[in-house]
């Protein structure tokens, strides 16, 4: 025990951190979750006495947890809503956003589908059940099977905001509850259209151009691709310099941090 304490002490001297808060509570988005997990795993290896928990309950729950002081860092796949901000300030919490990575929501179709490009407006009409056959957008005569993520996912919210512009989706839209499932449904259904995070793109589905822009790391990181979004970490005020929270929230700037972001299928911010 003494030896462990001693080595921890030496370790903290070497790494130069004043070890104060030994617990780090992270709560929020299921989309940002994998990044937080990867960061947490790395932090645990470097600081064995640090206790990090990462919960993935959804962006809304993350914001609520930060407002209530139940977490140190809220991971969110969208910016805070006005109401959440007001609640936070009323509670004496001042949310500060740190962008850790970019995420692209790619519109995908079955590889056999000849349609290679759609406009945002066309995608919107497909999801609103106004365009129901591929022949209406220059494809073969085949009913469109529209696949969306469930309404509680961050990916849905981004798509809803950037593509649907708050227009409601039609009643015929099917919902699946995870990126891999959306991928699997599009892969196996010739008439399907769906959307997944860029990390889930592969040769088994075909990503189409949206407004003539193909999704890629460059177009997403630069924001040219229309369905791209930043991923956030929210803290209460800017974290105290040198604190664990600060180190965690600025970890994405390091080479290792970028490597982890990329390994999880997201686009590092430095990929300009």
């Amino acid at each position, binding site marked *: 025990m003494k030896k462990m304490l001693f080595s921890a002490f030496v370790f903290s001297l070497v790494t130069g951190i004043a070890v104060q808060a030994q617990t780090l509570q992270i709560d929020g988005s299921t989309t940002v979750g994998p990044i937080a997990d990867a960061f947490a795993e790395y932090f645990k290896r470097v600081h064995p006495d640090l206790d990090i928990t990462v919960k993935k*309950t*959804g*962006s*809304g*729950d993350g914001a*609520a947890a930060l407002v209530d002081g139940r977490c140190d860092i809220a991971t969110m796949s969208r910016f805070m809503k006005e109401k959440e901000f007001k609640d936070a300030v009323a509670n004496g919490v001042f949310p500060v956003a740190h962008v850790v990575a970019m995420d692209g929501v790619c519109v995908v179709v079955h590889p056999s589908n000849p349609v290679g490009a759609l406009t945002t407006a066309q995608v919107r009409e497909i999801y609103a059940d106004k365009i129901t056959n591929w022949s209406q957008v220059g494809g073969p005569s*085949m*009913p469109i*099977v529209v696949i969306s993520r*469930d*309404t*509680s*996912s961050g990916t849905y919210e981004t798509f*809803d905001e950037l593509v649907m512009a*708050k227009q*409601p989706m039609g*009643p*015929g*839209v*099917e*919902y*699946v*509850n995870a990126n891999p*499932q959306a991928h*699997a*449904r599009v892969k*196996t*259904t*010739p*008439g*399907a259209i769906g959307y997944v995070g860029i990390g889930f793109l592969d040769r088994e589905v075909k990503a189409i151009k949206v407004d003539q822009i193909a999704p890629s790391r460059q177009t997403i990181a630069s924001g040219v691709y229309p369905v791209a979004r930043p991923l956030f970490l929210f803290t209460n005020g800017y974290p105290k310099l040198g604190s664990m929270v600060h180190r965690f929230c600025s970890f994405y700037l390091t080479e290792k941090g970028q490597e982890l972001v990329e390994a999880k299928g997201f686009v590092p911010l430095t990929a300009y």
Partner: protein
Amino acid sequence: MLGPSADRRRPLALTPGEDLVGFIASYLGRAVLFLITATSVLAVLLILLFVILRSTPFLREFGVREFLTSRVWRPTADEPVFGALTLIVGSLYVSIAALLFAVPVGILAAVFLSDIVSWKIRNVAKPVVEILAAIPSVAYGFFAVLVLAPWMQRRFGFSTGTNALNASMILAVMALPTIISVAEDAISALGRELREASYSLGATRLETMVKVVIPAAHSGIIAAVVLGMMRAIGETMVVWMASGNATQIPHPWWDLSQSIRTMTATIAGEMGEAPEGMAHRSALFAVGVVLLLMTFVLNIVSEYFLSRAKKATGKS
């Protein structure tokens, strides 16, 4: 066990002190047992109360009528609409369709196990059937999405493979162990006399089965069917993965190749992001109330028929 010598040392009558201790001990024992039993009863009542209480803000704001008759479920729109009709109909669709598949198969299998196959094989086959109930529903769900859905698209040319038919076929398989097990118990509980009487009157085995055994066991069989329906209507993971979750009522109504959405899938899928204190969350509780009432009714019906089945076999 006390030996005879120990018996002899005990006084015939208890002293008032011992009597009191015994009285209190038995009273306390009863009280503890009563409390333990009461917790499960209380839990049911409290769940019902909790769900109803949480749904009242929504029902007061939007009204029961719109909730039960509107076909539009748009909970996250700026002007949200909560019409649960498609969800209620969706739940009924998949459970009834599942029963259409599962009941004939289940009853035939039960008759086969109880009356036709040899005792040895029955003793192997019945536990194996019951293992079906032990497969986690998410495993069924993966099978539905990755195997059954593409197969249906190829084989039947459906545009989408995750649809009402897919969900009800999987639910049928999941309801089978319940139906077979309960129905088999009911049929084999009838006893030899009934069957021997039938044979002695010259009836064939088919006539005995169809005209004597199944009618005599009808209470137990109905209870089995109702229990199977409860299994189907309460199942969440499978329908969430296999039904497609489109908030629509199939048109035409018998077209099971279209996607539908059930009440359970809606609650499971949307509870995570429905913020506390918003109408959406409260509306999900209202959906829960409808679901609870349905399963309560089914439960009472099954209890009624099970008790009748018991009485019937008790008499014979």
